């Protein structure tokens, strides 16, 4: 068993109104960042898990996302990083 640190990014699904992202985008423009086109605010979750292989750790965290960490009705997730600790 190796301990893996798996990082997951969870975002509102494309096309679904993200008022939080919109408010942040508006604030950035107000501050003078005229290049801002779009902002999305999501969650970043880091799971440390013991697993025999990296792919099993990745698979397990994917299952955690589907069951609890993300809401498949309105959110998308992707695993951004897996590192052995």
């Amino acid at each position, binding site marked *: 068993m190796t301990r893996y640190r798996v990082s997951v990014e969870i975002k*509102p699904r494309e096309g*679904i*109104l993200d*008022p*939080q992202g919109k*408010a942040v985008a508006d604030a950035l423009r107000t501050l003078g960042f005229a290049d801002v086109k779009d902002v999305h605010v999501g*969650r970043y979750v880091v799971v440390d898990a013991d697993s025999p292989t990296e792919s099993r750790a990745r698979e397990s965290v994917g299952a955690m996302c589907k069951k*609890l*960490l993300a*809401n498949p*009705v*309105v959110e998308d997730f992707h695993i951004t990083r897996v590192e052995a600790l």
Partner: protein
Amino acid sequence: MKFGIVRFPGSNCDTDAYHAVVDTLGEEAVYLWHKQHDLQDVDVVILPGGFAYGDYLRAGAIARFSPIMNEVIAHAKRGAPVLAICNGFQVACEAGLLPGALMRNSGLQFICEPIRMRVETTDTIFTANYTAGQIIRVPIAHGEGRYEADEATLDQLESQGRVVLRYVGVNPNGSARDIAGVVNEAGNVLGLMPHPERVVDSALGSTDGLAIFSSLLARVPA
């Protein structure tokens, strides 16, 4: 008729629901602690408002896996009534008892004020004592009440007459198609963001919410 009011850590409308059922209607109610596995033979389950588990992760996401929810889901699958109010609605969606999800209000603010909504159908066990098209005034108190589902699901809800309550005049939170409350396909689970249990007593200004509870008495065999 015996009502069971589920208490999660962070529920805060449980006593209001109790007051509606026991003090106003004179029916029996028990509180069901979320760690229990026994529904105590209740006829109707109420998932009350509040902030179960502090709304950590997403509203309702963790409460949905509380031990009692296995029994609540089995109760619903048997066709027995579940009334899911506000945070309870969020829990019911997370648990898959109702389609869709409740997201951050479009205006980002937590809104606590009376709103107006229309009773779209009286052909449910929760609304039989209203008249069709009746406009009722009921308070909302939520930050995450924007109902979202994909277009196909929304079309299906509409065509099956499952949009039971709809905001009129002002849509307070940006809900798709002004939806305030929906039922599941079998019609035994109602989820709604407004709080009918807060308007059951004329001493508090209105009894517009009472018929949600009295309809159950009329339509559910105890």
